[in-house]
């Protein structure tokens, strides 16, 4: 476990998103933005185990997963700006980040939308004789979707190399977990026979260790496993969310256990000097500035780009037009 690198990525996600919030409020980022602030330890603790040949699927709150998977912050920021240099050439945006070079099969605007895709990626890897695993991230809202249940069944039945990662932040949009689910997550997972672990999602080292244990089985025998990371999103469901569904006290209480601060304290306790940490933070701050500048200076896509790339080969609806 490279503690310094875990901290670096958590810090990168936190600063990136704080800046994204400001840029969105300043009108520089179109669309909608769902921040991952407060949940950084989950993406980083899980994806620290990522190897070449592994894949991941993500959610509408996917910035943290993408950055933890190593997606270039410059191309990501440019995508959020809708620029031609974006990681999806401006066709995805915040909720739909893809980067196959990093195994990123997509953030997804549909709750639980990535789950069947992750299961299928696991099947594909198995059939192609490849050794990778698939990390399937989803929130507690996905527990209400049939595809989660179908996906757990199929992955268990076919013993596919998929790690299911439930980021239970307590709310599906504005609805509290207990108001929408009649079952205990552990009971659900046990019913399908998957190894199950629960981890404190604010503690990156605990997440890291839990995943290490679970992955032994997933990489070893190729069967699926399930992690429930208990976490909390410090910000609203989306930027601009009035957050009428929870109290300020509750949020303040949760913020007492800030995963980024906790990881920093751990570094200090482990004997990493303040100076080394500051150096790392300075590097990340510079990278973020570079990403923002890159995005701001990048050109808009040519409007005709909108008509490209639907198919692998060019198809025109009406060949005599334009």
């Amino acid at each position: 476990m490279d503690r310094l690198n875990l901290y670096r990525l958590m810090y990168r996600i936190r600063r990136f998103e704080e800046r994204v919030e400001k840029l969105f409020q300043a009108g520089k980022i179109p669309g909608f933005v769902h921040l991952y602030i407060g949940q950084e330890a989950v993406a980083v603790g899980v994806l620290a185990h990522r190897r070449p040949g592994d894949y991941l699927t993500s959610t509408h709150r996917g910035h943290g997963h993408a950055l933890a998977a190593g997606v270039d912050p410059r191309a990501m920021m440019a995508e959020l700006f809708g620029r031609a240099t974006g990681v999806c050439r401006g066709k995805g945006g915040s909720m739909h980040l893809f980067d196959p070079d990093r195994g990123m099969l997509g953030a997804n605007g549909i709750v639980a939308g990535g789950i069947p895709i992750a299961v299928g990626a696991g099947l594909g890897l198995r059939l192609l004789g490849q050794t990778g695993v698939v990390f399937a991230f989803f929130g507690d809202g996905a527990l209400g979707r049939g595809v989660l249940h179908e996906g757990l069944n199929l992955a268990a039945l076919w013993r596919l190399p998929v790690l299911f990662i439930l980021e239970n932040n307590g709310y599906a949009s504005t609805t509290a977990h207990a108001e929408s689910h009649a079952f205990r997550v552990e009971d659900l997972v046990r019913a399908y026979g998957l190894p199950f672990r629960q981890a404190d999602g604010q503690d990156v080292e605990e997440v890291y260790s839990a995943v290490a244990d679970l992955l032994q089985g997933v990489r070893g025998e190729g069967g699926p496993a399930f992690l429930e990371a208990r976490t909390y999103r410090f910000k609203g469901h989306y930027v601009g969310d009035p957050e009428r569904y929870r109290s300020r006290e509750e949020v303040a209480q949760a913020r007492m256990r800030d995963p980024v601060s906790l990881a920093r304290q751990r570094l200090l306790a482990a004997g990493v000097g303040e100076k080394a940490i500051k150096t790392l933070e300075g590097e990340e701050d510079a990278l973020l500035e570079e990403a923002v500048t890159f995005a701001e200076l990048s050109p808009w896509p040519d409007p005709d780009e909108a008509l490209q790339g639907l198919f692998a080969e060019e198809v025109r609806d009406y060949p005599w037009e334009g």
Partner: protein
Amino acid sequence: MGGVREITFAEATREAMEEEMARDRTVFLMGEDIAKQGGIFGQFKGLAERFGRERVRDTPISEPTLVGAALGAALVGARPVLDIHFADFLLLAMDELANQAASLRYMSGGRLKVPLVIRAPDGAIRSAAAHHSKSLEALFLHLPGFKVVAPATPKDAKGLLKAAIRSDDPVLYLEHKALYTRKGPVPEGEVLTPIGRAEVVREGRDVTLVSYSLTLYKALEAARQLEEDGISAEVVDLKTLYPLDWDTLLASAEKTGRMVVAHEAWRFLGPGAEISATLGEKLWNRLQAPVVRVGAAHVPIPFSPPLEERVIPQVADLVRAAKEVLTWR
């Protein structure tokens, strides 16, 4: 070499699967009741024995996850062919079809490749009624990102399935249930039918009947009956519904000046509506009459045989439509 045999539509698709699976290790097949049972129409018989249960997989009844999983496998480099029991059941998986499979390549800025084939038996047959009879092509034609093919003959069934498997894009392969047992000539050896190409299957001068899948045979029968009345009807088999072969359609419309488009999909906003509107826009002063559409009535497909027959286009409906465009002024 180069012989031609008469085989059934089901045998032709089974050959296509077998040849593509033998040719390319990354091709695999999954669906309900296909490995042990060989498919409910026998179109997968023997494939599990030859290629094993890894590459020919029986699945649980979980359409959304099956479509999503086939997509996921395609994204990591496999070439899945997913069989859906009945096209009606595609509706269970609309998120995975529309939001995911059709969209991901585009949304990713072209960075993802989606070599996915979904086979779906469609059409009305023997009072299967509303949950097992739908022709849903219009729905999928309306969702950018799918190529949609609907073969009528065993030769094209084989050729289009092979072309679909080799395509790097999501292809919806619609096979009318009444066609599985229909026999036709299929050449020995490689058969490929290009996606996006229609064919004039009967030359004519007076009127063009455009169709595909099972309704093509009704168009051919209508053309035969029209000939008895001294009317020379041209028949075009579309084969691929997206992308449409406009060149063939425009050429035939220029030639006869009178067009009928017939299909089992609902007439209201059906594929014929798009063809009619486009030919109207493009050739309004050269057509001798408005393009007339023949399609299913706007009701779910009913159970009782006379009701089913009333809703689905029949040969007489095509003959009537042809005479209508011929007498229009």
